[in-house]
């Protein structure tokens, strides 16, 4: 299914020449209307597997029964994880049914949050942050590296083998380790074009490199070395009366 979609070239508009009625640049990751396709239509069945159903029930039990619908976001996430990383119309319908809410209310949630992918994605989902702090620290170099590494695809595209999808995202809250990207559920921080490549190559081989800063520093400590709290912190008992030492 995925391959069928991927093989179809997506017509791209020539770089913006202003025409009489030019639509504004694409703003979000996908259309805000659903169209039936072979890989995404309400006839494709979806149901939670036994494990997820149990988890779903657990999640639902957190909310008062008349406000079951409050569980819609965690359940959509669960559905997205089970459905190869994307939220198809069947996932949304199933969750609407499970939570006894009109399907449209689920669609509203799923279209509001950009982290619900409403189109299929590759096995590994690479999200490169290009918001200001990351941008200042060279996020576009990272983005270009990623795109070129995958043979010149554009943000939003999936590689031909269906292994990677790259998108540009807004701040992920890891600015202190800018630039950064997210692969699947893990943050890879303090990137340079080289380390970026390394991370991607590891993923291509099916390994999972160690998440976190790739520059070797610990968490978000000062990269030039510590300027304060350099001495050994004193432990319990130090400087106490001898009987307490």
């Amino acid at each position, binding site marked *: 299914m995925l391959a069928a979609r991927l093989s179809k070239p997506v017509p791209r508009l020539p770089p913006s020449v*202003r025409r009489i009625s030019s*639509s504004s640049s694409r703003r979000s990751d996908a259309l805000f*209307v659903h169209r039936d396709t072979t890989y995404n239509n*309400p006839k494709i069945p979806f149901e939670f597997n036994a494990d997820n159903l149990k988890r779903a029930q657990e999640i639902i039990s957190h909310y008062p029964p*008349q406000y079951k619908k409050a569980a819609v976001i965690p359940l959509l996430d669960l559905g997205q994880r089970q459905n190869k990383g994307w939220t198809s119309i069947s996932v949304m319908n199933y969750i609407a049914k499970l939570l*006894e809410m009109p*399907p*449209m209310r689920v*669609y509203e949630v799923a279209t509001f949050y950009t982290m619900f992918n409403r189109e299929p994605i590759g096995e590994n989902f690479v999200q490169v942050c290009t918001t200001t702090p990351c941008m200042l620290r060279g996020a576009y170099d990272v983005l270009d590296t990623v795109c070129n590494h995958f043979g010149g695809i554009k943000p939003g595209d999936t590689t031909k083998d269906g292994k990677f999808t790259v998108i540009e995202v807004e701040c992920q809250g890891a600015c202190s380790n800018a630039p950064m990207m997210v692969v699947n559920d893990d943050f890879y921080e303090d990137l340079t074009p080289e380390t970026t490549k390394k991370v991607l190559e590891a993923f291509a081989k099916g390994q999972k490199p160690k998440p976190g800063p790739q520059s070797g520093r610990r968490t978000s400590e000062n990269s030039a070395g510590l300027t304060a709290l350099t001495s050994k912190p004193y432990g319990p008992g130090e400087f106490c009366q001898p009987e307490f030492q």
Partner: protein
Amino acid sequence: MLRLVSASKPASASILTKVTPSSSSFTGRRTFASTSARQGDITLTVDGKEVTVPQGSALIQACEAAGATIPRFCYHDRLAIAGNCRMCLVEVERSPKPVASCAMPAMPGSKVWTNTPLVHEAREGVMEFLLSNHPLDCPICDQGGECDLQDQSMRYGADRTRFHEIAGKRAVEDKDLGPLVKTSMNRCIQCTRCVRFANEVAGVEELGTTGRGNDLQIGMYVEKTMNSELSGNVIDLCPVGALTSKPYAFHARPWELKHTDSVDVMDAVGSNIRVDSRGLSVMRVQPRPNDDVNEEWINDKTRFAYDGLRFQRLTTPLIKQGDRFVSASWEDALTAVAEGFRASGAQDDEIQAVAGHLADTESMVALKDLINHLGSDNLTLDSVGGHAAPVHAVDVRSNYLFNATIPGVEQADCILLVGSNPRHEAAVLNSRIRKSWLHTTLEVGLIGERADTAYGYEYLGADAKAVADFVAGKTDFAKKFMNAKKPLIIVGSAITEHPDGPAVYNALAKYVEKNKSQLVTPEWNGFAVLQRVASRAAAYDVGFVPSRKASQTKPKFIYLLNADEVDPKSIPRDAFVVYQGHHGDLGAQLADVCLPGAAYTEKGMTWVNTEGRAQMGRAAVPPPGASREDWKIIRALSELLGAPLPYDDVLSLRDRMWEISPTLVRYDTLEHTSVDVALAGLKTLAAATASAKVSGAPFVKPISNFYQTDPISRASVTMAHCTRAFVKGENYGFSELSSKSEAAYA
């Protein structure tokens, strides 16, 4: 994004399995916080003027009360508050920023200004943002001339643009909402009035907003039509030209239209309408606010069936010669009727008159007088079983009227529907039940054919047996009903036509009598009959029913007044048939002579709605061709039949109506039946039906196709499109989800 409807009340597991994703879940329960009981009044100062408003009012209402106009887009006093357009900003003392007056409760003692430089600047700024993405297509926009955005930008907007966005304006794809509502989504300013209306009032929970921020758009996400009998109201609600009327598209501009206040006749609610006409034709029908009847809504048949007034009209008198109709002059036609009458040899009760769905009160009175003068009592109604007197008789009004009144529906805390689907029989009234179901703990029970009512109900069965069970207090619902403070029984008009009608009325009448402490009190009459035909309440009021002897007589001369539902088999072969009406529908086919009458937009006549409220319709356009007002035709004919009627103008005819029943000419008011009379009526009803047998036949919905129920809507092209799209589901089966629209579950 809007999160309005359907939080669920804990539903049973069996319901869970029944729910399909295809239909909105009415199993789910109300969500809106119910409004708290009204407490005292508060006083505040607006523009230096003191105003007193009820506590809980929005600031915008207080400003309004002080006489200050506040521009607005999203606020609408019959919908939930959204507060997303920011056009209603005002300055409030000690508030650092301008305040959205629609979303701000009025506070006692606060000082508000609506006309300061800060407010002006704020409005101008909001306007600029709204216009930055709004196309400048006013010349080709149907809303032009009645567009809130246009008006308000003239009044509050800047006089020049600073918009130089290279990428152009936002473009949004148009949605296909069906044959009634035309969309032009580029124009949408995302006020979400349509979404709120659809979810709160109409019960179309499929309409919503997708995306967010600048990308937010209105739609159903999946391709789907807006299947609701109230959908046309979003056209009025939309402050811009994003939602406009498809049938009316590019036909007229608002300033060319003549407005005539009138009354709708497509159902028995008597919705107040404004007929907009240009020259000789009706261009559109709009609702007129009336809190006692239709609030501000009308159903789609009322709004869009007007094009049926142009087709299939009878414009000249016709006389049948052999197997064809030949047009004739009035003189010839009336003479032909008189000759036919004499030739038929009809005597006494062999002279039959049949009053149809669209017969106005005046012409029914005239026809009844004429027939009575001719010595007959054979006054028949155009309905199943209309040849006999109705089971509830017509002596006591409260036996056949909607005694609880239409606004009264909202006070009921437990409603039993018997053989009725109010959604199709009185759509506007149904929206009140939905409103009350959403905001209060109203319980609804249904006996009859299952239907998608736009609110959840407990299904109690399909036939007279279920009524008997209810009356015996066997079901849980019956127990709840007994404990309700203002219980309401709504009996559909189809029950009168049903073979088990007498038994049902008997059971219910006894039940109401037994529980009169709740059901019939000076403040509340919880026994209500819902008529579905515009002329019916008036027909009962004037006594347009046959005597027992007359109902058994085989007629020789039949006068069909707007009667288009008659069973051709009920007309004897040798009878002479006259049809008077405005459309060449079924009745005209059966006739020997056709007399062209006027449709409801062409005559100023009295209509009595299901509550017994007399309202005056007004003529917006002249009747086409040689057609005439109906009562005049009957008056003219009476001369030739040798029984001249004693009134020569409509005023003396209304004097005659006054003699019959003063309620017929006390316009716009309701005459409540007193408790004693109502109980006496029920007693007679119970006595008259005491020997009724139960056949056990299930009750069926009297209206299977909401869009085509009378000659006007049957002649309407728009209504035919609606039938195809919504009833048969043709052409619009885009997505798996869209087809199963009328799935009913309780």
